[in-house]
């Protein structure tokens, strides 16, 4: 200890040893075990994060594709029925335009 010289920029082994002694905590093995357990937990979280990061866009993309498919199917079905003029009586009745008289009669007379 007598060698502590504040002007000296060399390391002071005696002071260093005393500082280490003063600052070293008890139960180093317990501390290491706790850190290892926390790291294992963090690793699990990281795995779930990766999975979640992977799943989120893929699930969104799948949902978007399904919605797009449904919209396309609906649009195609609607345009097909418009194109071949085979709209049902019910469709004609709920449409904005007034149906022709014969259509109304056909609706009433058609066998069920």
């Amino acid at each position: 200890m007598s060698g502590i010289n504040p002007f000296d920029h060399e390391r002071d082994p005696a002071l260093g040893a005393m500082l280490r002694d003063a600052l070293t905590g008890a139960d180093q093995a317990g501390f290491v075990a706790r850190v290892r357990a926390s790291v294992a937990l963090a690793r699990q979280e990281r795995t779930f994060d990766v999975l979640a990061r992977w799943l989120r866009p893929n699930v969104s993309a799948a949902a978007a594709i399904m919605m797009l498919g449904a919209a396309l199917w609906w649009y195609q079905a609607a345009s097909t029925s418009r194109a071949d003029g085979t709209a049902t009586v019910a469709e004609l009745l709920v449409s904005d335009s007034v149906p022709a008289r014969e259509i109304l009669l056909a609706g009433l007379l058609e066998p069920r």
Partner: protein
Amino acid sequence: MRNRDAGDGELARQAAAGDQAAYGLLVDRHGETARRVALSILRDEHDADDAAQDGLVAAWRSLERFDPARPFRPWLMRIVVNAARDLARRRAVRQTEMVSPEAPATRASPEEDTERALLRDRLRTALATLPERQRLVVTLFDAEGFSHAEIADLVGAPEGTVRSELFHARRALREELGALREELQ
């Protein structure tokens, strides 16, 4: 075990690839230093252990950002220092209540040598009177063997400032320990 002989950089590379055992070895190697560095900032053993643990786990999470071309220990200690400073900020009120030169942070166990226990307490007390950066600098330099340049990088201060902080810290510790030596004679 094969890993035990590997250098820090190699273990860090393995750990970054998901090898938990490799990181465990790094914790074995540097855990004690991390606790001491955290204690030099926080002055409370429980807080220091919490901060050191937070820092070591944060480092594990950040391993992908570690540059293997640079030394691992200063990189790790910078994360531990940041964790300790974060905790110090969060517990600032509690800390000022706990630490005073008249109240050493811990009591020596009965089986410890009296003189050594006294020295330990007085050194902790003397450290507690120093500003945080001086405590950190003297611990990193004299106790942990970091270079001035590494410490400057770690604490975010010029090297000249580190040398000056080291000078003031050592002078304060010398005075305190000199007084103790006179008491013991």
